């Protein structure tokens, strides 16, 4: 069989369905050479002609309208818009089982969704956000601590076994629980670090001295700011948990404090994912304003890393 034959057969079928001759020149030339495709064209013509002859076109009975009015006037018939009496059979046991399963699933989904309270502006934040906020608002760009510790910014938060476990497996679920605890511990550890810095144990922030390597100055600044859990960091944490509502809230806080297109973009992206379109539009409009030079905010030039997190 010529490799073109299956394609030509499809084209012939489509043309036959449209009641027209095949219109592609190359297919017509192929049909002239290929007896199999020529036979296919003949078969389709035969079927098409046969269908017009074989199929019935019955019409509704003369009593159609009268029967309809009788059904409408029947006492108690179709009350509430349900099917005519006697037409719909009782629900089978399988149907009931299916209904129960659907109801149970819906209940689980509702219970699960109630357990995760999204943080919206003005709403009560969850514990992690309260911890971070009560400890003082971060005043540094995103993830300097992570940048100082590891070239991979993802290292700023504990790498979760969820990244490697198969989704949906028991191992994945157990690993997820362990990782959540580990991530909370990491956040608290960073908060403690920040409190230590705030109490004066850390080196004061210094301007880079003349002749001193810029990298060293940056390192000092990073050391000081590393301890803080920034709103952007929290945003990333929540986003990694697929908690876009909390992530959007945290990113918006980061944007309000530090400004910058990257923070606005992250806030807009997660707000959009959370369904808060108004906030998303507000954030994206900020980016456009910045691009037009109408407004400039933020104390550093923000760029996006590979995960869409702003770094300065």
């Amino acid at each position, binding site marked *: 069989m010529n490799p073109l034959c299956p394609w030509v*057969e*499809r084209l012939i*079928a*489509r043309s*036959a*369905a*449209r009641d027209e001759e095949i219109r592609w020149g190359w297919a017509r030339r192929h049909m002239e050479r290929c007896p199999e495709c020529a036979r*296919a064209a003949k*078969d*389709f013509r*035969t*079927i*098409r*002609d*046969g*269908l*017009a*002859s*074989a*199929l*019935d*076109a*019955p*019409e*509704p*009975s003369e009593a*159609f*309208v009268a*029967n*309809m*009015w009788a*059904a*409408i006037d029947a006492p108690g*018939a*179709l009350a509430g*818009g349900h*099917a*005519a009496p006697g*037409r*719909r*059979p009782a629900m089978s046991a399988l149907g009931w089982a299916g209904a129960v399963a659907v109801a149970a699933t819906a209940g689980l989904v509702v219970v699960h969704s109630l357990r995760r309270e999204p943080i919206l502006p003005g709403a009560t934040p969850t514990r992690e956000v309260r911890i971070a906020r009560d400890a003082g608002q971060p005043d540094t760009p995103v993830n300097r601590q992570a940048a100082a510790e590891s070239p991979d910014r993802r290292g700023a938060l504990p790498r979760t076994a969820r990244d490697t476990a198969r989704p949906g497996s028991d191992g994945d679920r157990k690993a997820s629980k362990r990782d959540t605890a580990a991530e909370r511990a990491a956040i608290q550890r960073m908060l403690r670090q920040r409190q230590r810095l705030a109490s004066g144990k850390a080196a004061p922030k210094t301007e880079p001295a003349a002749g001193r390597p810029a990298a060293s100055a940056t390192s000092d600044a990073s050391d000081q700011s590393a301890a803080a859990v920034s709103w952007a960091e929290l945003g990333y944490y929540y986003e990694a948990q697929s908690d876009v509502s909390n992530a959007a809230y945290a990113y918006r806080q980061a944007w309000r404090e530090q400004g910058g297109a990257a923070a606005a973009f992250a806030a807009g992206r997660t707000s959009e994912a959370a369904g808060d379109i108004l906030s998303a539009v507000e954030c994206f409009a900020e980016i456009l304003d910045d691009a037009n030079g109408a407004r400039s905010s933020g104390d550093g030039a923000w760029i996006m890393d590979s995960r869409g997190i702003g770094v300065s």
Partner: protein
Amino acid sequence: MEAAMTSDCATVTDETLARSAANGDRLAYSALVERYRKLAFSTAYAMLGNRDDAEDVAQEAFVRAYRALPDFDPRRPWGAWIMSIVRNLCRDAIRRRAVRLAFATGHAEPGSHEPSADGHTPESTLIAAERLTELRRAVADLPDHLRAPIVLHYAYGRTYREIASDLGLPESTVVGRLAAAMRRLRRQFAAEASS
């Protein structure tokens, strides 16, 4: 009197008739049913493949529509509304598996394909009577979504655009399903010929 009112109804839009029917004008609703009963029936027949079930479903659709007239939004086309009720009822019927396919029996519906005055049709010279029965049976064996456009197009002569509107599908999908049905019928015939 009634005839005069019915002829008056011929110039009135569906939506106006529906509004009148919602206010209790039975004649207006009868005129609406008269406009759409054939279309509703043919669509139900194409989807279900059984005349009795098609009539029941079409009737039920009009009864439901009558009961739901107070909720009907006259800004929407009434024809599309009634056809969506028909389609939903057909799907319901297919799901309940309460449909017997008359096609499967191989019996033609009464009154169809009578020989012409000269004793034969042009098709009969091409395909023998048994081949027609086989073809009818093959169409009955098609999946519902492939059978409906075939029946509407070849039995009722509906255009692709009309079929798309009847079945609530894009026109390209209708052509694709027709082509798929043709290919399946050809394969089936080839298999029968070889066996």
